[in-house]
C-alpha cells in the first residue's frame, strides 16, 4: 500500500532510515538542545556529577592505592620489630647486635633503642633547654622524652636530618654526651639552629645537640624526643627494665619473613627465646583488602550519583517534552512519524548524556590531577573509565530518554496543535 500511495502521489520513496533522516534527526535534536542552553547544561549536571564522581573516585582510589602500596612496600612490609623479653639484669641485645643482624642477608638497617624513662634506675627524666653548655641550667623543664638509640637505630627509624648530623659509632663507642632532637622537641626547647653549640639538659646534665631531625619515616613519635647514644644512656641511666629495649630491623622488600626467622638466633644463638620477633603482616593481603573496601564503597556512591543523574535527565527531558507539545504537534502535522519524533527526543537525551560524560570525565581528571598536585602524590588515572565515560553517558542518556521519547511519540497532533 505504501509504495502504491507513494507512486500515486509521486511521493519520494521512503523505506527504513536513510542516512539523511539520521542527519536530519540529529540536526533537529541539537537545534532543540541549543534553543535552551542553560537548561541543557542543567540537565547535563546530573550526568556530569555522576560520571565525574565515578571517574574521580576511581582516580582518587587509584592514586590512594598507589600511595598505600608505596607505604606497604617501603615501610610496613620491610620492618621487623624485635623486643627484649629476656629475664636477665642487663640488656639481652649483645653490644654487637647491629653488626650481627646487619650480617643477615636482606637486612638494610638495624639498631637497638629504648625509652630512658624505663631504665632500672627509674625516676622521671627531666629535660630542659639552655643555649650553651656553659650557661646556667634552666629551671624550666619540658615534657620531652629521652630515647637511647644506637646509630643503626637512627638509620632504621628513617631519620631525616634538617640541620647538623646524626651521631655515629665514634660517639657510641665513647659514650659521648651528645644528642639529636626531633623537630617538635627542638621547637619545644626553642632551638632553631645549631650555631653556638646549643645543649639540652637531661636531669641537669648537658648534652650537646649535634642534629635536628625533621622527620622519621618509621617513628614519627620520636619527633618529640631527645635521642642520645645507647652506650651513653647505659652509663648514665643504667639498662632498661624488661621488656624495654627494642630493635628495629629494616629489610629489602620481600625479605622480611626470612629475616624474621633468623634474627633471634643471630642475636643470641644460645638464648633466642630472649627476643620476641614481630614480622610484618602480609602486605598484599592487607593492601588488597583495603583496595577492595575503598573501591566498593566509593563505587557504590558513584553508582548512586549516576542513578541520580539519569533520573535528572528523565525529568528534564520529560518536562521538555511536555513544554514542546505544540512543536511536536507541528512536526507530526508536517509529516514526522511517531518513530521520528521519538528518535529526535532520544537523540537529544543521547547528546546530553555524551556531553555530560565528556564534561564529567574532564572535570574528574582535572580534580584528580589538582588533588595529587596539592598533596604531592603521583596521580594515577585509570584510562579505562575515562575512555568509557562518554559511552556510559550515552548509555545513561539513551536509557533516560526512552520514556520521554515514548511520551513524545504518543502526542496526537490534533490535541497538540490546539494548545
Amino acid at each position, binding site marked *: *500500500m505504501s509504495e502504491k500511495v507513494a507512486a500515486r502521489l509521486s*511521493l519520494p520513496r521512503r523505506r527504513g532510515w536513510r542516512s539523511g533522516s539520521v542527519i536530519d534527526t540529529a540536526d533537529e535534536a541539537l*537545534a532543540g538542545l541549543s534553543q535552551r542552553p542553560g537548561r541543557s547544561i542543567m540537565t547535563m549536571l546530573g550526568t556530569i556529577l555522576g560520571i565525574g564522581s565515578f571517574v574521580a573516585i576511581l582516580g582518587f582510589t587509584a592514586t590512594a592505592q598507589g600511595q598505600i602500596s608505596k607505604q606497604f612496600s617501603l615501610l610496613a612490609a620491610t620492618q621487623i620489630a624485635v623486643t627484649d623479653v629476656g629475664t636477665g639484669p642487663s640488656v639481652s641485645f649483645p653490644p654487637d647486635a647491629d653488626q650481627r643482624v646487619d650480617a643477615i642477608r636482606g637486612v638494610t638497617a638495624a639498631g637497638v633503642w629504648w625509652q630512658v624513662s624505663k631504665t632500672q634506675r627509674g625516676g622521671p627524666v627531666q629535660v630542659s633547654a639552655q643555649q650553651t653548655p656553659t650557661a646556667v641550667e634552666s629551671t624550666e623543664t619540658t615534657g620531652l622524652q629521652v630515647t637511647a638509640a644506637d646509630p643503626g637505630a637512627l638509620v632504621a627509624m628513617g631519620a631525616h636530618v634538617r640541620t647538623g648530623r646524626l651521631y655515629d659509632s665514634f660517639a657510641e663507642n665513647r659514650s659521648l654526651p651528645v644528642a639529636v632532637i626531633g623537630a617538635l622537641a627542638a621547637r619545644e626547647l626553642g632551638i632553631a639552629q645549631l650555631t653556638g653549640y646549643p645543649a639540652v639538659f637531661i636531669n641537669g646534665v648537658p648534652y650537646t645537640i649535634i642534629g635536628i631531625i625533621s622527620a622519621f619515616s618509621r617513628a614519627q613519635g620520636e619527633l618529640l624526643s631527645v635521642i642520645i647514644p645507647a652506650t651513653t644512656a647505659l652509663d648514665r641511666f643504667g639498662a632498661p627494665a624488661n621488656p624495654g629495649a627494642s630493635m628495629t630491623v629494616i629489610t629489602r622488600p620481600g625479605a622480611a619473613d626470612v629475616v624474621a626467622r633468623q634474627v633471634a638466633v643471630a642475636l643470641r644463638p644460645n638464648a633466642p627465646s630472649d627476643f620476641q620477633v614481630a614480622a610484618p603482616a602480609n602486605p598484599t593481603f592487607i593492601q588488597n583488602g583495603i583496595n577492595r573496601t575503598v573501591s566498593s564503597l566509593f563505587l557504590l556512591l558513584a553508582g548512586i550519583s549516576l542513578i541520580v543523574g539519569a533520573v535528572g535527565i528523565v525529568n528534564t527531558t520529560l518536562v521538555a517534552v511536555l513544554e514542546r507539545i505544540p512543536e511536536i504537534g507541528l512536526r507530526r502535522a508536517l509529516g514526522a512519524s511517531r518513530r521520528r519524533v521519538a528518535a529526535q527526543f532520544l537523540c537529544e537525551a543521547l547528546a546530553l548524556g555524551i556531553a555530560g560524560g565528556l564534561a564529567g570525565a574532564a572535570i574528574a581528571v582535572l580534580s584528580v590531577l589538582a588533588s595529587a598536585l596539592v598533596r604531592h602524590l603521583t596521580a594515577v588515572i585509570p584510562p579505562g573509565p575515562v575512555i568509557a565515560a562518554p559511552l556510559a553517558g550515552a548509555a545513561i542518556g539513551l536509557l533516560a530518554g526512552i520514556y520521554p521519547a515514548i511520551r513524545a511519540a504518543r502526542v496526537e497532533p490534533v490535541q497538540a496543535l490546539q494548545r
Partner: protein
Amino acid sequence: MTGSHRVPVVSFDEVGKIYPGPPPVTALRGCTTRILPGEYVAVQGRSGAGKSTFLNIVGLLDRPTQGRYLFDGIDTSALRERDRTRLRGGSIGFVFQSFHLLHYRSALENVQLGLTYAGTRRGARPALAAEALARVGLQHKLHSLPSALSGGEKQRVAVARALATSPRLLLCDEPTGNLDTATTAEVMSVIGSLHRDGQTVVVITHDGAVAAMAQRVLRLSDGGLAAVDVTATPVPASTGTMPGGTR
C-alpha cells in the same frame, strides 16, 4: 461545476465523526462534498459547528468514524498510521492561526522543516525554501528569526512552509485569526495569488470577509454541511497547474 472528470482532491461521502466521550459528541455528521483541483473553498461556521473536526479529517490528522474520505482518489480509511503521516507530509500544506513557527529557527529553516518531513533531499531544501519565501514576498527575510517578524510576515512564512512541498492541498485554519485588518488583506492576497496559480486551497474561517474571497463557501452548522454558496467563478481547468508546475 466544471472539471467533474477530474479526481477530486477531497471527496467526502457521508463523513461523520463521533467522539466517544462520555458523553458521546457528534462533531460531524453526513457530510458529502467534493473539492476539485484548483478550487478555492472556504469552510465557515460558528464556534462548535465542527470546523476544526472538518479540518482535522481533511488534513488527515484525524479519522472519520462514519462515511468515506478519499484524498486525491485514495481511500484514507484503508491507510495505516504511517502512510497517513507520509501522505499528509507530502501532500497537504498546513497554515495555522497561531503560525506555529519554531522560534529558534530562521524563516528559511522553518520553511525547510516541511521539506524535511516531506522527504525532500537535504541539498535541495534551501533553494526550494528560498523560492517559497520569495513567492510570499519574504526573499529579504530568509535569515530572520520569527521574533524579528511582524504577525503578517510570520503567517507568510507559515504559508511558504506549507507551499514549499508543492502540496496537493493548502489547508488554512483561521489564517487571519491573529492578524489585524491590514495584515489580513496582505496574507489573503498571498493565498489568493497562490490560488490563481492553480493551488487548491481550503480555508477554515469564521470571518465572512475572508470566506467571501473563496470561490465556494461550505457552511457548517451543528456538524452538518448546511449550504453551499458559490461566490465566484471557479478557476478554469486549463489554468489549474500546481505551484511551480512540477507535479
